[in-house]
């Protein structure tokens, strides 16, 4: 059973490596960001599998932290760092007070 979990973890890591192609190629920032988001879920899956296979419950806490904080980076991306054209209706920077 353990070796099955580890095999699946390896396969998941391979899908992560394949997804890197999307990060490298883009073409837009959203595409790269979405790939990173998928990697987060993949990392959670790998951690859960390894926690079971290796009998290390602490790994589940690492997965918990990843799952809990997955939103933060996407939120920063959507609200702050979407490069290129600004949304049509407004400029939403909060850095205009920095001169």
């Amino acid at each position: 059973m353990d070796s099955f979990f580890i095999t699946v973890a390896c396969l998941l890591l391979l899908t992560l490596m394949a997804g890197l192609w999307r990060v490298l190629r883009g073409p837009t920032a959203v595409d790269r960001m979405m790939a990173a988001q998928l990697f987060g879920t993949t990392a959670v899956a790998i951690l859960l599998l390894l926690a079971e296979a290796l009998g290390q419950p602490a790994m589940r806490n690492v997965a918990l932290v990843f799952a809990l904080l997955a939103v933060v980076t996407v939120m920063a991306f959507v609200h702050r760092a979407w490069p290129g054209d600004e949304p049509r209706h407004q400029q939403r920077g909060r850095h205009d007070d920095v001169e």
Partner: protein
Amino acid sequence: MGAAMTEAGLFLLDLLLVLTLLCLAWWSLAATDLFKGIVLFIAFGLVLALAWVRLDAPDVALAEAAIGAGLTGALLLTTLSKLASSIDNPPAKRSSPVLLWVLLVMLAAVLGYAIMSLPQQAQGLADTVASQMGNSGVEHPVTAVLLNFRGYDTLLEMAVLLLALIAAWSLAPRAATSCEMDEALTVSPIVLALFRMLIPLMILVAAYLLWVGAHAPGGAFQAGSVLAAAGVLALLCGKRLEGRLAGWPLRLGLVLGTAMFVAVAAAVMVGGAHLLQYPLASAGKLILLIEAAATFSIGLTLAMLFSGQRPSRGPAS
């Protein structure tokens, strides 16, 4: 499916991890598109956490997860948005590749020599720590080392964090005293729903990580980072924490961890012990007290560093 297959699978997994890490590190450094570099660095953090787990360092993996997912990505993306208007990516100047390769080979040789000259059977301090665990007041060796055996180092780290914030504030513009939400930011109901559901959970998980640190991987820095991520999420959702938290309550919160640490360190000397030499009976409680204060201060300090603005002197009206 025997143990041999498990071993082979783990070897393959480690190999893939190392390969992915090296590729990610190289690509994120070599990326001329800064955004691409950031996303690659975020992915690097994810895979690095997996690597720490495989190196039997779940404490470091937890810290990497909390800081990587909760702070670094958001910090780099925000920084990029502030840079974007001021610089265009300059075309990379190609220096002589020969020189580059000579330097690379020299560095690789030095690092290789350092690794090869490591003793084969390093004793380490694991046995010493294990034999002294009974005197530490906690059951998790990492916490015992950080808060008790080498508590002095952790105390100085807390002070360094505080100094970093003071340095950042001395360079930062003063924040507006307004307490309301960012006017320009139209907050969608999705953001609000995520915010309302996740913030309490983050605080709860931070408390859990702090508590679990006494007997398993976790502790003040991990918990503080999760707490900071909650602050970062609030800032990203348009809450003006700088306006809300100002004046002496904020400053008290920031120094609380260091102050508590120093207070405990000094208080035990009254009983004739050395600096930071906790009495055995109350060591566990003292460590929890220090860690609770430290968690709060670390979370607040990191969130303030993310905000990058110096809050006003007085509280907002």
